[in-house]
């Protein structure tokens, strides 16, 4: 045997070196202390002040030791569960889980292919289709529901999502009240609060506002999550050249300061509260002002924030599978592929935004189904090359020799299934066979598969007790909103 061997178990991909991460991190600490951040939440400011920050109005100057302490307290790994116990997401360094994205105003109708408002039934379709897709590991709704009580569309979305898939949901809400209602639904699905505390089945998403502002609602929700031990995704949407510096390193510095502000507040509220940093890191298109979702800047900077998260030992929320294309066309495939591939290689934990299209304005379920296949390829590459006596096949090579073939060799039979990735929709037929089979393009196959899953995939069975509890929660929420309207 050979000794002293080093092997790569998987591919290696890193954009920031240890030194570069350190340099950015030191500047993050300086920004938080010297420049300061705005925190529009009194309780949070009080917590920060009591812990040693200097507070001036809404501006808070956070000393490095508070940041370092928070980093030492936050779990570097934790588990999010399927509500029925059928699976888990392990949020720890380099475990990658791609999924969809949240709350767009428009939606591509999966049958008419028209761009229209997002409806309650669409959220159910999205969850059911995602439930069936192998490489989609968590679910966000792809749209903001337009046909329920407006103030409660976030809650209705969550109900439709969690009752139509067992995969963990990354939820959002307008405010803390709805966040609490969503939490109650999740508790009902878990079978009680104690069960939920042991096996959380959703994560909660909130956005600070670049540059360096933590708004009231986001902080309010972050405090609630910390209190209830709900994994909090604290994620700025950064626009280089607009709301952040135009340079990648400058953007990452500000973005990290925004994330770590949420981290410090959460850890001050409850030590060890599960927290995920990250976000959508991209630039403003200086011709159209569009927030670019499909550009290479997004991929390189999401890989950058992932490296920073790994450097700090904090789980990372990354971005991929999104596009600026308006419909399912080659641009959507190219942008989805590059961003998901890069995000998978770089090792972001929760990789969101598959199905995001038209620069974050339209949800497209076709693109989710297409990206599921793309992710299959990405994972196959990420697995790397196994090198050992068996895989190097030196004796097999010697036996077959020149002008032979390997088709009949048992070595081939032993390995071809795991070494070869088999697409479901990408086409490899010879021309004539492809033509005879209807000459279908990838787009056509994607649409067929999407519709097939909408019509045929069986959603999980929701326990009757949970169903009743959810009805009660929705009724109470409707009553609350009605009361608030009268009060106004």
């Amino acid at each position, binding site marked *: 045997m050979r000794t002293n061997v080093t092997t790569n178990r998987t591919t290696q991909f890193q954009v920031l070196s240890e030194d570069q991460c350190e340099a950015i991190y030191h500047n993050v600490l300086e920004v938080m202390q010297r420049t300061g951040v705005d925190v529009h939440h009194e309780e949070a400011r009080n917590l920060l002040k009591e812990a040693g920050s200097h507070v001036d109005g809404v501006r808070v100057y956070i000393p490095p030791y508070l940041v370092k302490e928070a980093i030492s307290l936050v779990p570097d790994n934790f588990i999010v569960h399927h509500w029925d116990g059928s699976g888990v997401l392990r949020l720890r360094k380099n475990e990658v889980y791609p999924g969809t994205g949240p709350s767009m105003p428009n939606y591509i109708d999966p049958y008419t292919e028209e761009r229209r408002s997002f409806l309650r039934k669409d959220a159910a379709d999205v969850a059911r289709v995602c439930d069936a897709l192998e490489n989609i590991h968590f679910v966000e709704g792809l749209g903001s529901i337009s046909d329920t009580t407006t103030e409660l569309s976030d809650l209705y979305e969550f109900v439709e999502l969690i009752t139509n898939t067992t995969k963990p949901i990354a939820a959002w809400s307008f405010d803390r009240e709805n966040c609490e209602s969503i939490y109650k639904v999740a508790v009902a699905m878990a079978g009680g609060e104690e069960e939920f505390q042991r096996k959380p089945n959703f994560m909660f998403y909130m956005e600070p506002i670049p540059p360096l502002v933590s708004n009231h609602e986001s902080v309010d929700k972050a405090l609630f999550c910390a209190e209830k031990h709900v994994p909090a995704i604290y994620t700025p949407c950064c626009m280089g050249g607009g709301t952040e510096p135009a340079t990648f390193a400058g953007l990452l510095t500000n973005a990290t300061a925004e994330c770590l502000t949420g981290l410090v507040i959460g850890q001050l509220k409850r030590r060890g509260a599960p927290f995920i940093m990250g976000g959508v890191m991209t630039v403003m298109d200086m011709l159209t002002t569009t927030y670019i979702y499909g550009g290479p800047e997004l991929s390189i900077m999401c890989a950058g924030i992932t490296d920073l998260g790994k450097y700090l030992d904090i789980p990372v929320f990354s971005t991929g599978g999104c596009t600026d294309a308006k419909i399912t066309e080659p641009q959507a495939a190219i942008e989805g592929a590059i961003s998901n591939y890069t995000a998978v290689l770089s090792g972001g934990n929760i990789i969101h935004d598959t199905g995001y299209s038209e620069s974050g304005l339209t949800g497209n379920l076709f693109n989710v189904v297409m990206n599921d296949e793309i992710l299959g390829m990405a994972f196959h590459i990420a697995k790397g090359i196994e090198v050992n006596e068996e895989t190097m096949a030196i004796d097999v090579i010697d036996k077959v020799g020149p002008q032979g073939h390997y*088709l009949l060799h048992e070595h081939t039979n032993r390995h071809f*299934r795991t070494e070869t990735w088999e697409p479901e929709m990408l086409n490899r037929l010879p*021309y*004539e*066979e492809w033509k005879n089979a209807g000459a279908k393009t990838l787009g056509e196959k994607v649409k067929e598969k999407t519709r097939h899953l909408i019509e045929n995939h069986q959603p999980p069975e929701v326990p009757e007790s949970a169903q009743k509890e959810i009805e009660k929660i929705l009724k109470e929420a409707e009553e609350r909103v009605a009361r608030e309207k009268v009060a106004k």
Partner: protein
Amino acid sequence: MILKKLSQAMIEGEVEMGKELAQQGIEEGLSPQELLDDGVLAGMEVVGDRFKNYEMYIPEVLNSASVMHEVMNIIKPALVSSEGDFKMKGTVVLGTVEGDLHDIGKNLVGLMLEGAGFKVVDIGIDQPAKSFVDAVEKEKPEVLGMSALLTTTAPKITEVIESLKEANLRDSVKTMAGGAVIDQAFCDENGVDAYGSSATAAMEITQKFVEEVKNNAS
């Protein structure tokens, strides 16, 4: 029961089980032709269908084909004492044309055809037109398959067709061609009866041609 199990062994690529079952069948007095038709070929037909429906992969199909070889070696000697020779589905002569050393596509077609119950005579790579003609004269196949991978060797297929005509053998055999540079248009223009875009296509073409020949004869 033995025949059913034997065909299952073919489908699952179980060499040892296939051999045992064939031996057992002979001992229990089943005829070699019965073992071949209702055991071996019945199993291989399922394999062929599954492959066509993308349910089985090529190495698995070939694995089943090698079980077939092993089983045939057992039932052949039993034949000597009975009716003489197997009735295979038909005969196919295969070869790669002159100047071309590409092997794998032709081999694959051969293995698939054998698996489907045809007798395959592979004359090898880099074969001049005369070798094809000689093989057709000697083996009297229903189908002749020609392989070419290069633009420079494709015209050799035309030479084979012309040589068959000169030897008055052209009408005695159906022809098919395949390989990276070959397409339907090439076959149409050069008097080749069919274009095989893949090993599966070659198998289907062969089945169709052999049936036609049988129907014409009867």
